[in-house]
């Protein structure tokens, strides 16, 4: 029953999406309020029906309705409730439905909360949202139907991959999709602007909250994915440059560029074409990421079951959206007037450089990810691109950018003098140099790169603080300055400082992690870092859908002892194994223990790791996401730009 309701709701949603694609576009060109209102209604209704379809699927999963093929393949009667629910999106069809749900909800949000937008513009944006939604619902219904029936229904299903039976599955995909799909709004805004033939400061102000929201969610989603891999996969890795990880990093990098480019557009009316292009490219990278995961073009830890037919369909969607948008860009963008002039040393120039570096970094990740695909078309030799490549190419591009980050907020608009900026940054410069020298002294000359990384981290954090200090000095007192500082300035400070914390974590982990792998017997003690680890016992246990071998340890440091366990779990339904690591979390680093196989003498393989500052990687990312939230909370965005008066085409609204 739930399957039928869901299926029907999805078909209805398709019709509404079609309506939403066509009607408001006509309404905008004819300036017909009724048609434009119909577009808004269609968007809202579409979201409701997709939500119904999604709820139906979730219901089927929770109730283990094995008459649905996708439920039978991804859930089991012994699976805990929360993972039956989250299993709704732990597969290709369901996750695609989640994608469509978020797309339609964003469309409804534009319809319901976009009162500050010019009506014709809002209508065009909704139309483009609708077109994307139509394409994906057709994709769902014809190649990836979540409501496909399995007859006869099996008695029990195949289990959800045990690696996915984790709280991470509940939060990570939804956050990621909020990010990926959130950028579709910027895409729609960009294409609508190209159709209208003009972009002004109001456009930049309208688009910013949507980009911020998507960016914040994507930041949190990627951080969560990294953290999940760290504790779940059993060897303490946090980033593998896996194609699917890259597929999330690329929209993030481009989205960061978009965010900052829109800033210049809003403030000074410059970087018009560049910002529009970034708006198109960010979502296009989300689409290409979808293509990557679901088409079987590359193998990856994250691949869903591959089907080239789906790949062809998604490729067609990409051609229709990105291709059309870029063609429109080639045709219309040259005519769009860009205004303000600025000097080679100015905040605009700094943000232009920011764009350059981020786009180059994105291009490098793209090249590394897709080079094997390109190469197999031109050569018989097959190569693969792994982490060493990115270490040699991505890092050298990001490093200068990270230095620039501190200069950016300190530069004045339009024109500035290099000497003055340096003078403003005297404090951070001195602190950073001291930090670098201290790091080299403490950690030795063999670790110069790591010391540079730590110095860079200090530079970023102190530089962020310098923004606030400068405001206090200019603003006539600490208290007054705190009161008058816009929330988005705190957002900037949090985000840039968070970046510094992230860099510190990465530097420390890359340079100073260590491991020991031995067979241990109960009663033995091993030391790693400053931690003494004693294996106390090895016991078996049974979980709801698994059997486990549990090793109990005592971790002792500075006279304080704490218990820790690590498990090796066997899931009979899918005949697979996982390792549950025991992690001692400290501010300055983790001690990570993962057990392996028992041997025949009553011992067990134990892998011990010292992970310095690893928590700072995700802590930094969380700070960045908080910065995004703070910027979003800025009253000026919620009050919104005043409704733009009729402006003759081609004239700019000066910032």
């Amino acid at each position, binding site marked *: 029953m739930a399957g039928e309701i869901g299926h029907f709701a999805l078909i209805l949603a398709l019709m509404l999406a079609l309506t939403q694609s066509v009607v408001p576009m006509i309404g905008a060109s004819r300036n017909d309020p009724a048609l434009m209102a119909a577009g808004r209604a269609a968007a809202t209704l579409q979201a409701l029906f997709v939500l119904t379809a999604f709820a139906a699927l979730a219901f089927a999963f929770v109730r283990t309705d094995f008459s649905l093929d996708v439920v039978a393949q991804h859930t089991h009667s012994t699976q805990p409730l929360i993972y039956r629910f989250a299993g709704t999106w732990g597969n290709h069809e369901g996750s695609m439905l989640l994608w469509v749900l978020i797309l339609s909800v964003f469309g409804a949000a534009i319809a319901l909360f976009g009162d500050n937008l010019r009506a014709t513009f809002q209508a065009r944006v909704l139309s483009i949202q609708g077109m994307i939604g139509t394409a994906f619902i057709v994709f769902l219904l014809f190649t990836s139907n979540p409501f496909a029936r399995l007859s006869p229904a099996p008695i029990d299903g195949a289990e959800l991959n045990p690696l996915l039976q984790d709280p991470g599955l509940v939060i990570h995909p939804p956050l990621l999709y909020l990010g990926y799909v959130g950028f579709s709004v910027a895409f729609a805004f960009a294409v609508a602007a190209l159709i209208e033939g003009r972009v002004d400061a109001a456009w930049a102000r309208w688009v910013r909250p949507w980009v911020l929201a998507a960016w914040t969610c994507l930041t949190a989603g990627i951080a969560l994915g990294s953290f999940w891999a760290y504790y779940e996969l059993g*060897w303490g*890795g946090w980033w*593998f440059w*896996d194609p699917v990880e890259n597929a999330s990093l690329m929209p993030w990098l481009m989205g960061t560029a978009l965010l900052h480019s829109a800033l210049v557009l809003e403030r000074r009316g410059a970087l018009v074409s560049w910002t529009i292009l970034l708006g198109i490219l960010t979502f296009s990278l989300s689409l290409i990421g979808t293509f990557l995961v679901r088409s079987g073009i590359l*193998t*990856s*830890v994250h691949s869903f079951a591959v089907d080239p037919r789906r790949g062809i369909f998604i490729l067609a969607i990409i051609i229709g959206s990105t291709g059309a948008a870029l063609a429109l860009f080639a045709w219309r963008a040259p005519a769009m007037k860009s205004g*303000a*002039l600025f*000097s*080679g040393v100015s905040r*605009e120039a700094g943000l*232009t*450089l920011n764009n*350059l*570096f981020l*786009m*180059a970094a994105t*291009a*490098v990740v793209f*090249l590394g990810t897709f*080079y094997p695909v390109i*190469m197999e078309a*031109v*050569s018989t*030799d*097959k*190569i*693969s*691109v*792994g982490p*060493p*490549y990115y270490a040699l*190419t991505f890092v050298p*591009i990001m490093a200068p950018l990270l230095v620039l980050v501190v200069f950016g907020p300190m530069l*004045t608009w*339009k*024109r500035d003098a290099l000497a003055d900026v340096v003078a403003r940054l005297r404090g951070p410069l001195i602190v950073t140099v001291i930090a670098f020298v201290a790091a080299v002294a403490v950690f030795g000359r063999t670790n110069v790169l790591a010391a540079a990384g730590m110095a860079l981290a200090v530079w970023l954090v102190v530089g962020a603080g310098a923004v606030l200090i400068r*405001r206090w000095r*200019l*603003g006539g007192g600490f208290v007054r300055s705190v009161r*008058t500082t*816009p929330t*988005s*300035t705190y957002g*900037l400070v949090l985000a840039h400082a968070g970046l510094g914390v992230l860099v510190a974590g990465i530097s420390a982990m890359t340079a100073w992690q260590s491991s020991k*792998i031995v*067979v241990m017997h109960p009663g033995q003690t091993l030391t790693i870092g400053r931690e003494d680890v004693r294996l106390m016992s090895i*016991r*078996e246990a049974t979980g709801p859908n698994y*059997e486990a*071998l549990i090793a109990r340890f005592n971790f002792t440091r500075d006279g304080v002892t704490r218990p820790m366990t690590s498990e*090796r779990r*066997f899931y009979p339904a899918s005949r697979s*194994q996982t390792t549950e690591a025991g992690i001692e979390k400290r501010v300055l680093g983790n001690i990570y223990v993962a057990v*392996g*196989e*028992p041997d*025949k003498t009553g011992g067990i*393989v134990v892998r011990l790791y010292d992970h310095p500052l690893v928590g700072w990687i995700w802590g930094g990312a969380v700070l960045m996401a908080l910065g995004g939230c703070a910027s979003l909370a800025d009253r000026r965005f919620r009050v919104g730009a005043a409704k733009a008066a009729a402006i003759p085409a081609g004239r700019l609204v000066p910032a």
Partner: protein
Amino acid sequence: MRGVAALVALLLAVPAFAVLPAEQLRDPALETRARAISAGIRCVVCQNQSIDDSDAPLAHDLRVIVRERLTAGATDSQAVQYLVDRYGSYVLLKPPLEPATMALWFAPLGFVGLGAVGVVLYLRRRVAGAAPPLSASDAAAADALLEDRI
């Protein structure tokens, strides 16, 4: 007790865990080299893991071979070449520098270079006309106003 034995048997029956203690060489210098080499060799039957990290039986075999080669006196590059001779360049996590991968290795430099040229050209078109510099107090007041509008 029988339960533990059964579980042990079950666990032993499934593929070995990545780098086992039994595989490790006694000579710490050789072992360090072996670990470093293994970290750069792709596990060809896994999805994006090195043989150092992977649980797969083939990864175990290749780890053992790397250690055998090193113990037999091979240099790091000879040990790596032994595997490349059998499995191809695909097995290297760091793509080799050869004609087909020139684009891969030099394009990043190209991106930055092209981008820099583009930025310079763009900035030159945007350079502001000569405006008289502000006095210090005016500059501070302007700063304060502008800062307010971030």
